Every structure is written in structure tokens, then in C-alpha cells.
């Protein structure tokens, strides 16, 4: 945690209400995201119990499994899930635009991509798990001899969920988001990051942030800077505690966990008896289970939409749309692989694929950090505090030129700053040019005194013998330089997988992967 984020948490703890960590929205939000709230069966890997899913906050589709150990019932659930999710995931495949690529040729890119939102990190992991459990399944059509053929579109859904789950590991991506991640990116609570994983508790701190209106949170107004013992400072903590622990007369949590794990008390007191009735063939047992699961799912469903509304209220960061382009490329590439009839994603990455993904994610992480700082003064403040950027007023500008056959302008700009950048002579620095938003490069030319930095401009001034208009600041201007690049590139030139070198075991074995072995009592 950076010191700035720590300070925000401390302020939240003292005031009893969440504090902003961002002044703009740093993630793309689709107009109509698909929200998916899953529950899983305790003790079973990837055995879904139920889900609420849909794009209309008022009208979710409820899917349930009355007996999670029954393979046919699970397949029925997955087929129903495919019926809801696949039309959404496939909805943006055909609206395309043509864009030139760097290589010169034109490429097709989907103009939008469907978005999936789950409640928390566990939900993201569950999407991956579902994807893994489905994508190697074979349908009766693909393999007539398979002992337990999967419903028609289930393997396809597995491939989509696998793609979304994998994309979610890319820093700044937004194909698959979790509500807790969205909220914690933009607000600090007065509790720990561990506790922030509880969506109900997290939202409690955010609601407390609006509890200025007396009565909203038990009517306890604030009483000045005094803190946590009964005053308003405890509002968030108390509301969060209620969300974590408050139980009804039957001992069930009033705010059920946001899944995918259920509350053990719910399992033991309500669900298990109902499943037993279902097994015994009691009339109405399946409907009862549906109702029970709905009571556990609905609060989380509403919470996810509330989280989306809160985040949506922030104005989008300037560079968010450009990052979403990356997601659209990713969506388009997956569409193309499906259309080309490629086999499902392998169980584990080969050496080259793993290295490529890592290189891309490191680049995307660097880009995300840079872009968030450029989009948001509050994020930039953190970088300034860390000595990775500095802002100040230009005190002097000196004309200078490069030596060489064709001298180019290399003006020296001196800035007075209260920041403490980690600079040495020669350190490269960057700033956004006012006007067109391009990046201007420079290097630290001298540190002439306390609070003074002289930057030699090295780019962004055009090709002429004189700098382009507006490309050199003048005394009195306020400027902000970063020590980090704005559009970092890079990553090694890696071989193709079939050229994997001997050091890494040579090319991977070819061919698509086998499906999981089916046994008499397999779970999925």
C-alpha cells in the first residue's frame, strides 16, 4: 500500500466513511454489462449450486441445481447458463470496423465487446473454474461414444469463460470485472484490504460516506474530529460489522456472503433439509430450493448493481477508452480462433505462450500505471509522493542546441518544485504537451539547487530548427514531469511455439488436449 492510500484509509477510519482514491473512473463500464452472481457447492470443485444472471437489474434469471451431486442436473444448469450467457458473449462478433495495423495491412476489429461483471475475486476464479470444467467436454455430436455427452453449447461457453477469465489477469482489462475490485480501485475504506473482499462490508463503508443526512445511518451525526468511540467516526465500521455478522432469528446472515461460497449455516439449516426433501421426491422441494437460493443470491445481485452505479457516477478517465480498445482486440482475436476451428485453450500454457503473456502483462501494467496517473491528479499525487514525478512552476527557459551537423533545439527549462523526485543528471523525464496530448521527452540536465530541476527538452518540438509553437514552456507555466514513460513498449522478440529452443524443452507436443476422463461418479 502506498503512503497516500494508507492516509486515505486512515482518514476513512477516523471519519467512518469511505474516502476517494480516484477522481475519475479508471475502468471501462459497458452500458449493459452482464452481471453473473454464482454460488458453488461447499466441498466440491466447480459444482455450481445456482446463479443470478442478466443485464437488467430488475429482472435477473435465476438458475439452480436442486441436487448438486447429480450430473444431469448440473448439465441442465450449464445448458441454461449457456442459453443466457452465450447470446450476450456472442452479441458483438459481427459489428466490426477496419483499422490499419502497424504492419501496413488492415485488420478487422469488433466495435464493442460484451462485458461480464461478478461480485468479487472468488467470482472471477469461479468463472475460470467453470471455463476449465466445460471446455474439454465433448457433445454427443462431437463424440457419439462419449458416455456422458455435454449439452450442445456447453463446451463453447467453457471456451468463452476461459478467455474472459484469462483476460481478467491483464492489468487494466475490463472484459471481466469484479465489483469489489472496481470499488477498491476508486475508494478507500477504514478497514483492511482483506475485509474489503466482503462486498457487503465494502458497500457499507461507501453508504456511510453519504450518511451526512441524519437518520440515514442510525441518526448519529458527526461530532467533530473526535473518533471512534460512539461518534460518527464509527459509522462505517459498525455498518460493515453488521454486514459481516448480523444474523436473523434463525441464525442466518442478513447479508449473505457474495459467493461463490455459501454461508455454512444456510447450508446446514436450510439447504441440506430441502435437498433431502428433493431427494425423497417431496412435492415442491425443487421450488423451495429455488426460493432459498434466491434469498442468498438476490442481496448480492443488488449489491453488484449498486457498485456499478457508484462507479459509473465517476467521469471516465481520458485514456480508459484506449485501454478498452485492447479488450476489443482480445475479444476479436478469440472470435477469430473460434471461427478458425482451433481447439480449446490448453490446460497449461506452453513456454512461449507463458512468456508472451507475461511480457504483455508487464507492458500493460506499466501502461496502466502511467495512464492512471496522467488521467487522475490523485493518482499522480501518489507518484509525486514516491518521487516518480514532479510538478512546479517554470522559473527560467534557456535556448540551447544539440551539437552535430544539424543543430536541433534542446532548450533548458528550469522548474521550481516542492516535490522530491528521485532524479540524477541524465534521468529521462516525460510530460504531456498541452494541446495535443502527445508526450514530450526530456532529460534531467542539472539540479541547480534545492527544489530546482533543469530539464533539457529532447523531443516533441517538431523537426524544424526552431521549436514548434507551444512545445516549449515559458517562465510562469505550471508543468508536470514524470520519470516514467507514458506509452511503454517492449517485451522480447519471442520465437514461435514450434521453435521453442532446447533450453526450454523444445517444441511442445502437438495436437489438441484430451477431455477429462469420465468415471461413473464424476462430478462435472
Amino acid at each position, binding site marked *: 500500500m502506498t503512503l497516500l492510500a494508507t492516509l486515505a484509509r486512515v482518514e476513512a477510519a477516523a471519519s467512518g466513511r469511505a474516502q476517494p482514491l480516484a477522481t475519475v473512473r479508471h475502468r471501462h463500464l459497458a452500458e449493459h454489462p452482464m452481471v453473473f452472481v454464482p454460488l458453488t457447492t*461447499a466441498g466440491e470443485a466447480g459444482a455450481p449450486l445456482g446463479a443470478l444472471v442478466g443485464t437488467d437489474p430488475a429482472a435477473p434469471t435465476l438458475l439452480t441445481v436442486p441436487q448438486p451431486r447429480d450430473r444431469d442436473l448440473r448439465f441442465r444448469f450449464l445448458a441454461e447458463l449457456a442459453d443466457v450467457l452465450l447470446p450476450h458473449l456472442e452479441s458483438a462478433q459481427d459489428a466490426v470496423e477496419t483499422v490499419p495495423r502497424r504492419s501496413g495491412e488492415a485488420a478487422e476489429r469488433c466495435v464493442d465487446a460484451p462485458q461480464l461483471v461478478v461480485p468479487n475475486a472468488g467470482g472471477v476464479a469461479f468463472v475460470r473454474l467453470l471455463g476449465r470444467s466445460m471446455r474439454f467436454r465433448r457433445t454427443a455430436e462431437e463424440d457419439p461414444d462419449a458416455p456422458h455427452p455435454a449439452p450442445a453449447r456447453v463446451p463453447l461457453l467453457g471456451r468463452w469463460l476461459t478467455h474472459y477469465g484469462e483476460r481478467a489477469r491483464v492489468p487494466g482489462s475490463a472484459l471481466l470485472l469484479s465489483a469489489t475490485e472496481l470499488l477498491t480501485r476508486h475508494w478507500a475504506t477504514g478497514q483492511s484490504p482483506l475485509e474489503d473482499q466482503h462486498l457487503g462490508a465494502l458497500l457499507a463503508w461507501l453508504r456511510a460516506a453519504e450518511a451526512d443526512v441524519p437518520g440515514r445511518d442510525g441518526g448519529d451525526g458527526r461530532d467533530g474530529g*473526535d473518533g471512534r468511540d460512539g461518534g460518527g467516526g464509527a459509522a462505517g465500521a459498525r455498518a460493515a460489522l453488521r454486514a459481516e455478522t448480523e444474523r436473523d432469528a434463525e441464525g442466518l446472515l442478513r447479508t449473505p456472503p457474495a459467493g461463490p461460497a455459501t454461508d455454512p449455516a444456510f447450508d446446514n439449516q436450510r439447504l441440506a433439509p430441502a435437498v433431502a426433501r428433493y431427494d425423497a421426491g417431496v412435492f415442491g422441494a425443487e421450488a423451495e430450493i429455488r426460493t432459498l437460493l434466491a434469498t442468498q443470491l438476490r442481496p448480492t445481485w443488488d449489491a453488484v448493481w449498486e457498485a456499478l452505479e457508484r462507479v459509473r457516477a465517476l467521469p471516465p478517465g481520458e485514456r480508459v477508452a484506449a485501454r478498452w480498445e485492447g479488450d476489443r482486440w482480445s475479444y476479436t482475436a478469440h472470435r477469430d480462433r473460434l471461427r478458425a476451428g482451433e481447439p480449446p485453450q490448453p490446460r497449461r500454457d506452453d513456454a512461449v505462450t507463458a512468456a508472451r503473456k507475461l511480457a504483455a502483462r508487464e507492458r500493460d501494467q506499466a501502461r496502466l500505471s502511467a495512464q492512471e496517473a496522467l488521467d487522475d491528479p490523485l493518482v499522480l499525487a501518489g507518484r509525486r509522493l514516491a518521487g516518480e514525478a514532479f510538478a512546479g512552476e517554470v522559473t527560467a527557459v534557456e535556448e540551447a542546441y544539440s551539437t552535430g551537423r544539424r543543430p536541433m533545439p534542446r532548450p533548458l527549462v528550469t522548474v521550481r518544485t516542492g516535490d522530491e523526485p528521485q532524479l540524477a543528471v541524465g534521468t529521462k523525464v516525460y510530460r504531456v504537451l498541452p494541446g495535443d496530448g502527445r508526450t514530450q521527452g526530456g532529460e534531467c540536465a542539472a539540479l541547480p539547487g534545492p527544489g530546482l530541476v533543469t530539464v533539457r527538452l529532447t523531443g516533441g518540438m517538431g523537426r524544424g530548427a526552431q521549436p514548434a509553437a507551444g512545445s516549449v514552456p515559458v517562465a510562469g507555466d505550471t508543468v508536470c514531469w514524470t520519470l516514467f514513460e507514458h506509452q511503454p513498449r517492449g517485451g522480447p522478440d519471442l520465437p514461435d511455439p514450434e521453435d521453442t529452443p532446447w533450453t526450454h524443452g523444445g517444441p511442445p507436443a502437438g495436437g489438441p488436449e484430451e477431455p477429462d476422463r469420465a468415471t461413473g461418479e464424476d462430478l462435472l
Partner: protein
Amino acid sequence: MNHRTPAAGLRRRLAELRGPAHPPRPLDARALAALAANPGCRRRALLDGAGVDKAALARALGAPAPFGQSQFAFARGHAFEARVHADGCAALVGLLRAATGDTGPEPTGVEVPDLTADGPAGRAARTRLALAEADDRAARPDGGAVWTVLVHPMLALPVAGSPVHLEPDAVAVAPDGTRTVVEVKSFPILDGTADPAKVGGAARQAAVYALALEESGGPVADALLLVCPKDFSNLPTAAAVDLRRQRAAVRRQLARLTGLADIAAAVPEGVTFDVERPGAELAAAVADVPAAYAPECLATCELAFHCRERARSGGEVTVLGRAVRGELGALRTVDAVLAAAHGTAPGAGAEGGGPEDTGAEDAGAVPDPAVAALRRAARLRAEALAQAGHAAPAPTPAPGAPPPRAARDGGGR
């Protein structure tokens, strides 16, 4: 192992603390392993060492632990474990040999001795006997490659002077006498990977069993055999998990439990954690033993909600996460951090440049870099929020307003 024989006095003292009417709650491997999760917490060490029922204590304090197990998970775990042992453990021995790369001769037999007996002491005696028989077989030149698998054996480990009985899922004894701890878990090994947090937990628990096995003599393998469902099936698969680090950590923590006498001695005479006492009295008693609360406790300790409440009302910054203290130095409370950030703490004026610099009262003292950094952080944060049109953060005192109460008396230590 190097346990001091405790004075009978310590045992008596711990019984007093627990409340003489209550038998000590037996420690299990999970509890022992959990000691390593927060070894700095004297409260936990004392309550566990005294055998206090922490769950009951937490209920009595009005902050019950939210732990529970779903019967679905329970049933599944039992069914899976039964399946692992089903065939007379031949498959289990096969998994062990495959996971450890054992190139010894093919097993000529697998013995699964009956270990039933009355009470833990009786079962521990049966277990000792079974281990000795396995060793005898290993010593016989004509013994052949016979393996022995002890299913749910009972091991004894002296902890702070008293024997604790422990029940691993199984112990496999190779023809050469080497013992391997076997843990059967119901989380899956999916494509060769498993949840690292869960594997870590299993390894710490197994390390306790390995130490107990060491106590009973005979060579103990460095690795645990972790048996889990394979992928989405309930077929067993297994992996060997190196336990050497966990064994070193648990051994160290158990040795430290002998420091219980010192902790107990610091508790005033007459104080008791007898869960029959009223909540307020218990709260005062618990407060007599210092805790080291961190949010991680919420997942492992029954008392955590109570400790969190106390830590919050004391304004301790660790409620925000263990990591926050790294940059705060000596500032331990929310009030002290805010006082530093908003210029009302000593040393705050050492940092130059802030236009709203209110100056330091004790100029000449060595400036505290944590205070200076917080000052800069607060200034940058306020500036950025103002730039974006947000109001300044709520707790910033108005200029000229008196500093928050705790700031004046220093807040932290």
C-alpha cells in the same frame, strides 16, 4: 525436541485461568499449526496453552466466531477419504511411491493394522505398537517389501509439558521403516496445481504430525503426501510437499510455548477466563493479556472479532492491514497519523515548502521522516482532490481548530 518439564505450578495456574470446572480443550494439529500464524500474540498463546474454549469465550464476549463447516463439505470429505483407504491402502502406497519417485522393489504387501482402542491414550499405545511391528518387519532380512499404513493413528506430542494427542489421516511406513505423513484433503489438484493457501495450511498441519512422529522415533520423510481429488473427479491423486521449512517453523513455535509461564505470570492473580463469568469481567480479563491483532486473524482465530473491536476502539492502525505500519514508523494510531499528516504533531514542520506549514513546536529535534512524508502526502492529496473539485477530506481540521484530542498526548509510542 527440547521441552522443559514444566512446574506443576504452571499447570495449576493454567487450570485457574481456564476455570477449574472446565476440562482443558484438547489442542489439535490445526490449533498448533495456527500458533505459527501469529506467533507474536500472547493472548492467543496463553488461551490456547491453557486449553480455554476460545469459541465459547468469544460467544461470552459477544463477538462469536463466524466459523462453521457446511455438511456438504463434511460429507464429501468423508466420502473421499473412505475412498482413498477403500482397497486396503494399496492404491495409497502406489500414489506415495509415484509422488516420491520411489524406485524400491514392488510392494509385496500392505499391512493396515487395527488401531482401535479405548481413549486417546489407548489408541496412542496401539499406534506405538503398530509402528514397532513395522520396524520389526523392516529389520527382518526376509521381510520382503511390505508397507504398513496406519489409518487414523494417534500420536502424542509434548506441548508446554503436557502431552497433546494428534490424529493424522494416515501414516505410511515404507519397507525400510521411513514414515511419511499422509493428509487427505477434499480440495482438488487441478491440472497439477492446487490452492497454495490450502496446501500451505495442510503443510503446517502435517508438520505438527511429523514432529510427533519424530518423538516416537524412527526416520520421518521430509515430505508430506498430500492426497486430493483429481481435477473434477473424485479419483485420488497425490503430490509430495516438502515439509522442512514448516517443521522448522512449528518446532520453533512449540519451543516458544514454554514461555507461557512468563505470560501467565504477568496476568494478575484472580483473573480468570472461565466462560461462565459475565461478559464484562471476561472482557477485562482478556484485556489483561496483550494481543497482536492483524486482519489475518479473522480467518484463523475465534477471538478475532473481539480483538478487532478492541483494536478499532483503540485506533490502532494495524486494523487497516499489517502492511500499513511499514511506512508509519513509530506512529501506531489513527489519531497520531492524522495529527502528523495535518501538521499538529511534533516534527511536522521539518519538511519545507508547504505554504500552509504551521511550523514545528519543538524545532531542533530530529525530524521524523514518517511525519514529513505524511505531511507531504496530506498536502498532495488535498491539492489533487481540490483540483478535481472534491471537497477536502472530512477529518482535516479547519485552520486554527484545535488538534484532535489524542494528538496532544502523542497518540503512539
